[in-house]
């Protein structure tokens, strides 16, 4: 029989595609805190700008709703990496982030922020493939994507425009009709 992580339930609630690593870090934490390992990880404001554009490729603005950039994911990702992630994953994130920036120069001869949307999509496709080829071991792409999903679908834009937010339903109807194209409930 299959051993299934209980936290997949939270994955269902939060938007589906969150990796086991991130679930482990963020929601189940029988990880022993080791004070000696604590690093202080600080982000530059340009890093936030890059991460905002990066997340915008993962969840871009569409006709129906704004994208991750507008939802503030660019500042959300650094905040969570800094305060919620253990040092070993922070390292992996930072290393992968720097490698991605280097890759832009070698592949496109440009800085990340100067890439066209098409070029960024190509880049993203390669990062995705690398992660798949590496058995979905923790990587910068995996972590950044997970946090984009989390950040976006918890944001006001994600909850109230992409999805439908009902602060006080007032009743429960377990037999309501689902209309074609109807948005998902945010929570």
């Amino acid at each position: 029989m299959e051993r299934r992580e209980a936290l997949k339930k939270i994955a269902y609630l939060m938007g589906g595609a969150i990796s086991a690593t991130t679930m482990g870090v963020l929601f189940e934490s029988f990880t022993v805190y080791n004070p000696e390992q604590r690093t202080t990880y600080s982000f530059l404001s340009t890093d936030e700008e890059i991460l905002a554009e990066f997340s915008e490729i993962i969840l871009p603005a569409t006709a129906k709703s704004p994208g991750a950039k507008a939802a503030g994911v660019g500042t959300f990702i650094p905040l969570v990496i800094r305060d919620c992630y253990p040092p070993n994953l922070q390292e992996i994130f930072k290393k992968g982030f720097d490698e991605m920036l280097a890759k832009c120069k070698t592949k496109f001869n440009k800085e990340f922020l100067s890439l066209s949307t098409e070029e960024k999509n190509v880049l993203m496709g390669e990062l995705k493939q690398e992660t798949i080829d590496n058995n979905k071991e923790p990587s910068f792409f995996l972590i950044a994507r997970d946090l984009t999903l989390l950040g976006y679908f918890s944001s006001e834009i994600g909850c109230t425009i992409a999805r439908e937010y009902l602060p006080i339903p007032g009743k429960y109807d377990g037999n309501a009709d689902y209309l074609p194209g109807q948005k998902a409930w945010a929570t």
Partner: protein
Amino acid sequence: MNINTDLKKQNTYDAIVIGSGISGGWAAKELTQKGLKVLMLERGKNIEHIKDYDSAMKAPWEIPYCGELTQEQKRTHPVQTRDYPYQQANESWWVNDLECPYTEDKRFDWYRGFHVGGKSLMWGRQSYRFSDLNFEENIKDGHGNDWPIRYKDIAPWYDYVEKFAGISGQNEGWPLLPDGQFLPPMDMNCVEKSVKERIEKHYNKSRILTIGRTANLTVPHLGRGSCQYRNLCSRGCPFGAYFSTQSSTLPAAMATKKLTVRPYSIVNHIIYDKDTKKAKGVMVIDSETNETMEFYAKIVFVNGSTLGSTFVLLNSTSEAHPNGLGNGSGQLGHNLMDHHFRCGAEGTVQGFEDKYAYGRRANGIYIPRYQNFKDDKRDYLRGFGYQGAASRGHWHKEVAELDFGGDFKEILSRPADSWTMGLGGFGEMLPYYENKVYIDHSKKDKWGQPVLAIDCEYKENEAKMREDMMYDAAEMLEAAGAKNVKAYDNGCYPGMTIHEMGTARMGNNPKESVLNKWNQMHEVSNVFVTDGSCMPSSACQNPSLTYMALTARACDYAVKELKKKNI
């Protein structure tokens, strides 16, 4: 001298209640309503109903880190952060593990809420009666001691507490799950109804599936508002729609004007008077100032949560009670139990793609125990029930691995293609003498008190039961037509269900138990213990309703005895 006499008088009450949680709040209400002047001592801070529910109305984007836990929180709460109950939204309602350490001889996840209301603010609210079989099983199979009561003794008290607390549910006439005094039941959704029908048909009604019996109001009740289906109960409810000390028992007690609540009051021990052979009162450490002080009363109710209460009793030593107050039997600290869960099955239910739930029901379905009953014989003792639910989340099978982009975002903005149905088992744990707690004098907490050591593990009966909890669930879901059914066991350690009970058990024989059939100490007639510590067995039903009933019953007896001058 005048000052001392005045202070003593000031500190003297008719009754002291140690703890303000689910059972402590009831003791305060019952005793004050019967005319006693009561002092309720709570070791933690005050939390005022509605006013202090800081996160109750917060949107997802207003919760720090969108709900993720920080490394700092894990540092200060290494135990509380082991599982789901500790959340960013209610993080200040869980104990700081570093200030209040304990010793784990074997892993025991001890979840504690140190504040007025205790865990009644964060509890799961499922409320089920114990049945006659539960009260008889100890004597039947020889594990644990005989309960000194039977269902008929507690039935009127279940009626009484259900009517006040407001429990919504559906009567089913199931022998192992007695009916109750219910408010209208919450609705099952279309998938649950279908699964119910198919399971009951397949097993020829030898198993039933019913809506959860929950301490959430489906109609306004005694001045409290009805559930608004936000499913954020553990943040505190601004509508007062679920039972807690704050929403229910405390206002009733305060209305009598006979209740004093003193927070920041850690009870270190009960003061025993060797001349009267009764408790005189309690010694308290003020958790903010570290001052010590004494309070006196004619009766003491111990409701500090199972292990909190037993700690106080073990720590209350004297010449007459060298091993803890009322511990002539040697049973104090022993027979610790907790349910076990985190195993079951889940599957996809097709055919309801044109349906979607409106509202977030703070309740699930329940399959009451059917094992080791009538013709259903198992290779282990006792049994389990299931909690479960069907939902339509955001899992989309057509999404490619690690996808991204505009189309991907659109897909995730809609609900999943199909519904999933899950069943999670809750299993009974046998009472084992060797599962115990004792005081560890080698460690100190923030206030210089020794700490509790816990030595407890699940054993063979529990392990065998878990296999069935998985396979039965999978079999039932398949019988109901679910696809891709997967069984799981995520592993469980004692403490995780937060239903820890035992260690100061009731019994008829003073040589084998700490309390008599009235929750009264055999050896100290004015001390009553009515929280989880009093339980001789655990059944598989969520226990809090039983604590409420035992508390109300014991208060009734205690006050009658007090009036007759028997105690």
